[in-house]
């Protein structure tokens, strides 16, 4: 490793020194692991011994262990969980989801497509669903200038595709959620993800405003996350994992300590029986007892797979398919005065076809 440091310190000298006469034996990287921060431990045998493990995958984010980690047993507190009982009270359940992708790029901006799904159910049966879109949005310096958002946030979306897609999704979902919260009453509105305020929200259509509308019209707003970045939650979920029936536990203290932008009350919920996943659920505007609202949700939406069917339907309805993407491209080519340029996958070109 010392050699390596020297190379960095005196690049000109060392390049000349090693140059064309470089021999493999003159470079020594064996001390590489000692040259990084001590937090990046390399004593794997000591650190991993006796642990249970779930391997991560490149392409999928939300892998959870089937069963529980070994360390979870120590934290089980059966008294912390509350069972969920079905409350047979006819209530409309509405779920919203969306998906967005980048369709094309021009010299001055990017074109995005979004598709939304809104699904309704009551008495455990699906009622109907709305497929909204695909709708196209073009983000460029010109369009961003008109934004109500903070100019730094607005500019950020020009440089980062993921932020841009998130901006579009948040904007459209909030618009639909605002509409639903204004038009429904005594209903349950399900949102995919936590009830977090986002910098991409507009002032008039943000999660707080939606929660206010829900409160006025006696709607209950649920934010249901399929996965969470708070790893601590998986550690305290052992009691729920062992629960044979639907149950929930309050995690308000933990969430409030980790995030100040979350609204409503925060829970870990198991909607189904023994093998159902544990989900983080944020609940806002709930005048009744939490168990009452969860009971109404379980009774009015099918949660057979441990996840509300309306949200699942909304997700499937909102998924942009390859065919729709092809159709959008065909639509653009045939309806606008644009010229398609040939393109190449620079990553594949540089790294070769076997790269991931």
């Amino acid at each position: 490793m010392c050699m390596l440091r020297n190379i960095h310190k005196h690049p000109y000298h060392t390049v000349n020194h090693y140059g064309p006469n470089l021999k493999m034996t003159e470079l020594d990287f064996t001390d590489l692991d000692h040259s990084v921060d001590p937090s990046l431990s390399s004593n794997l045998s000591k650190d991993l011994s006796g642990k249970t493990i779930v391997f991560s995958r490149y392409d999928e984010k939300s892998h959870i262990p089937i069963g529980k980690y070994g360390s979870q047993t120590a934290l089980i507190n059966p008294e912390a969980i509350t069972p969920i009982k079905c409350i047979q009270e006819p209530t409309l359940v509405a779920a919203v989801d969306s998906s967005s992708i980048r369709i094309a790029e021009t010299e001055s901006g990017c074109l995005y497509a979004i598709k939304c799904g809104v699904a309704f159910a009551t008495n455990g049966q699906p009622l109907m669903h709305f497929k909204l879109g695909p709708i196209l949005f073009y983000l460029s310096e010109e369009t961003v200038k008109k934004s109500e958002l903070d100019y730094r946030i607005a500019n950020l979306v020009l440089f980062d595709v993921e932020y841009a897609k998130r901006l579009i999704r948040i904007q459209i979902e909030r618009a639909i959620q605002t509409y639903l919260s204004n038009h429904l009453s005594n209903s349950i509105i399900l949102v995919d993800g936590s009830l977090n305020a986002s910098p991409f929200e507009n002032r008039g259509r943000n999660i707080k405003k939606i929660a206010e509308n829900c409160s006025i019209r006696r709607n209950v707003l649920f934010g249901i996350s399929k996965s969470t970045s708070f790893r601590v939650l998986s550690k305290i979920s052992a009691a729920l994992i062992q629960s044979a029936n639907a149950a929930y536990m309050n995690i308000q203290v933990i969430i409030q300590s980790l995030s100040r932008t979350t609204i409503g009350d925060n829970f870990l919920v198991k909607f189904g029986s023994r093998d159902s996943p544990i989900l983080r659920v944020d609940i806002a505007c709930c005048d009744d007892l939490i168990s009452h609202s969860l009971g109404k949700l379980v009774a009015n939406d099918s949660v057979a797979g441990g996840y509300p069917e309306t949200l699942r339907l909304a997700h499937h309805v909102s998924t942009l398919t390859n065919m729709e993407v092809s159709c959008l491209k065909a639509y653009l080519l045939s309806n606008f005065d644009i010229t398609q340029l040939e393109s190449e996958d620079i990553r594949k070109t540089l790294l070769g076809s076997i790269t991931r």
Partner: protein
Amino acid sequence: MKVLSKNSDELVLLAMVSDIVRKGDYLLIEDEKLNRKMIVQIYDEDYLSSQTLIEDIVRDEVINASSAENLHDPLNIGKLSRMIRDARLFRTKIRGTIDTSGRMSSDFTWIPSRVQSKIRRLSIPELDDYVGRTGNFPIKIGKTRGDNEEFDIYADDLDGKLNIVTGKKECGKSHLAKILIKRLVEHGAFVVVFDLNDEYSGLAINHDGLPSSLADQIKVLQCGDGLTFSLKYCGKVAISNVLKNALDTPAASMREFFRIWDWLDNKDCLNIDAFGRAVNTWSVNELVRDALVSRFHIIQGSGLFLQNHGEGVRFENIFSKGTGAAIVVCMAKVTPIVRRMIVELILNKLVDLLENEIIPPIFLFAEEAHLYLRDTYWEDITSRMRHFGICPTFITNQPDAIGDVIYRQVDNIFLFNFTNDVDLDRISRVSLADNDTIRSIVKTLPHQHCLAIGKMVSDLPVVVEVAELETLALGETRKFFSRHVGHGF
């Protein structure tokens, strides 16, 4: 439509729902840049399919089955998506290219541009122009499918040729045969029909019960009613062939038969009574006598021969008229052995008359040929028929009953619907068109539609909707329950 891919002599074309063409249709692919044209025929169609497309369709169906859908699709992308789901692939066979002189050739050394090519449906008259298909004696057999234009074949292309009309039962084979016979007689041709179901006599009667325009030219013969011959007219060869091929007479008995025949001929008393007496009194081995006596009783019982020196049927009298004529030999009510005797006798006599140029060449229609086609003599006759001047047309629903020797001589096939793979295999193995075309098109042919293959269509298969018959069709299936319709059975 666009060219999508090529494999050997096949082109795959991409088409949308708005492209209205069907299996069997011809398409002209014009490559404007190369200034060349290619003629292809659609033999199969399929959906444009990919794994993602199927997944999309399945997912949409599952979603729509679980919940009623409301769409808000401002860009109308759903319409495009539906178009793609309904997009079709046409598998076509390259039939030829058009050279600079505008004539068809088999130069497949180029492929049309995917980008520049324009594809359009080719009408049959246009196709005829390209291949130069023409003739002097048109036979209007129906309409081409799709553009509903009248479709003619030419009697010239049937003349001196071996033709087969085949397909499963009740699909219109006899119907087409009757059209062919009618038009041939109208053109002045002479036709002999072996009619197994007593249905061709209807050619003499119109739908309204009045005599048809051919009434005077149709001669219906049946056992006991006109179909009788004198032994002398039939001749030694014909009768001996009846004994040998139809009645399976042993060789030793045949030798005695020749002696008896010569003896009666020398005495100038060749009639059935004298023949019977001679057989019974002839000095010969008992076994031979028994064989000859038993054959004599069959011959006598058949009613085909005059008891004395009467005239009987003389083909040359019917076929020597200036106008065309058709002899319909009804074999509906005779036993299989008599049926074989009739066929053997008539064929031998016709060959004799043709060889001696007493009658002009004739067209022979053999209905349900599989019931009396026998390897022993038909194949021999078939292979030499055109030299005699007999142009046979076999009509059968059992393609496997016709031997390979006959199939190899075939010039034209009218192929009706077959769904059985074994039958299709048989046909496609020996037919004049490629296997893919036969299998795909024929399986989906509707009632009274046929695929015309062979010289009559310049070896370019054409799907034809067979025309209605102006005369009585007869030959329909007799049904028990049809008697009770309207009678409150």
